[in-house]
């Protein structure tokens, strides 16, 4: 094969690789994630402890430390699975809200950073958001956090989930754009 062929072939291959390089992060499936900390479930208490937690405070430092990953399609898909399994739909529907606030709009009562959402999930909030600390392992909680952010189009679109295989009318998360211009990626 002539050197011309080789150069052309190499150039094509390089171009193709560059196009797909972000795939490494997007397709990562890390099964050995951060384990649940020993004291995490200690505060769970009895079954009746589905009570609202203190407003606006939480382990932001801890939340910022590890576990959040919005680049991995597997993480987001698992988050979508837990959203369905753990009945977030009960109050938040498919993101449109009901007895709980909508999750797919621009309004974030308690903050939209991953740490804020993690705190909301783990410690609960006033007006009815239960505390799931000790119930939902942290690893899965971070996956739910990532998914909740995808409901408002705040994660990379090539990793966000597309439509679910069930009855629903919502627009797939992958096709959502952030409502506020400053949130656009």
């Amino acid at each position: 094969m002539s050197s011309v062929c080789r150069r052309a072939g190499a150039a094509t291959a390089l171009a193709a690789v560059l196009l797909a390089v972000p795939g490494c992060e997007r397709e990562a499936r890390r099964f050995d994630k951060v384990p649940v900390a020993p004291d995490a479930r200690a505060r769970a208490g009895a079954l009746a402890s589905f009570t609202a937690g203190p407003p606006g405070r939480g382990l932001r430092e801890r939340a910022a430390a590890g576990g959040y990953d919005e680049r991995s399609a597997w993480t987001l898909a698992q988050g979508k699975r837990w959203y369905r399994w753990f009945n977030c739909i009960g109050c938040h529907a498919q993101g449109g809200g009901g007895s709980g606030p909508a999750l797919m709009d621009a309004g974030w009562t308690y903050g939209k950073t991953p740490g804020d959402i993690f705190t909301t999930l783990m410690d609960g909030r006033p007006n009815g958001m239960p505390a799931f600390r000790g119930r939902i392992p942290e690893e899965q909680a971070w996956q739910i956090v990532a998914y909740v952010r995808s409901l408002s189009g705040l994660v990379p679109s090539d990793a966000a989930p597309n439509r679910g295989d069930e009855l629903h009318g919502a627009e797939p998360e992958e096709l959502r754009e952030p409502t506020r211009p400053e949130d656009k990626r």
Partner: protein
Amino acid sequence: MSDALDAAGPQAAWIARLWWISLWLCLAVFIGVMAALGLALWRSHRAARTAGDAPVRKDRALRVLVGSATLLSSVLLVGLLEVSVLTDRALERLPRGDALSIRVTAHQWWWEMVYEDARADHVFATANELVIPVGRPVVVTLEADDVIHSFWVPNLHGKKDLIPGRSTTIEFRADRAGRFVGRCAEFCGLQHAFMAYDVVALPPDRYAQWAEHERASAPEPQAADAVRGRELFLTGSCMLCHAVQGTSAQGRRGPDLTHFASRSHIGAGSIANSPQALARWIEDPQKLKPGANMPSHFLPADDLAALVAYLETLT
């Protein structure tokens, strides 16, 4: 060891019979054609050593041979077709009177079995094991929760796919007691390799005992660490996905654990069931079955021991 030719029921026996007929027929055809080829090659090679360019064999003789070989092949194929259709018909004609009715739902990557009954309070659920009475037909309703799976117990019958959005049935009967293996036979994702279930055929009286036992709720734990283990189970994350009848744990996302300790495997065939294996499984299922939907729980040693002690009481 699972084996399609070691039939423990009438359907597998019919299919095994068809297998042997086909095998001998195909072997005969293979030997015949290879012999003809060998003969042709030999004669042709011999003819090549004689001089000349003219065609060697009379085409008329060859026409007769080819024609009759084609005719014979067609007759054999039609015969095999008839045997195949008759076998298929026999498979469908299993007498179904007094059949046991079980509803199987396949999930990624475990099997949910619900034993149905006319009386609602006699319905019970189990997972990753199928216990059936010897000599009684079983009608299994097959549904899938997520992707396409396939239900296959080679010793008893062929396979049937479980397709989301469709409900179908498979009927079979075990004619001898024994332990068999069932496997998922349609690629279903990361852990298709570990989606097996134990199939146990028991004599009718022992089956009745087993069913009676399964209907009962989980016994009250007596030992202190088992009691503590139950508290951990109910106040931690276990109850979000698993159910133990007789407690407040009613999760439907993972296998029902009411009589977990009497099962022979954990994780749909991932590992044999034992207290040590259970501890390893709870701590880090991802090591044994990477990609499974059960998260890791790195508990302190005494908590883990208590949890295992509780689960071991769920016989």
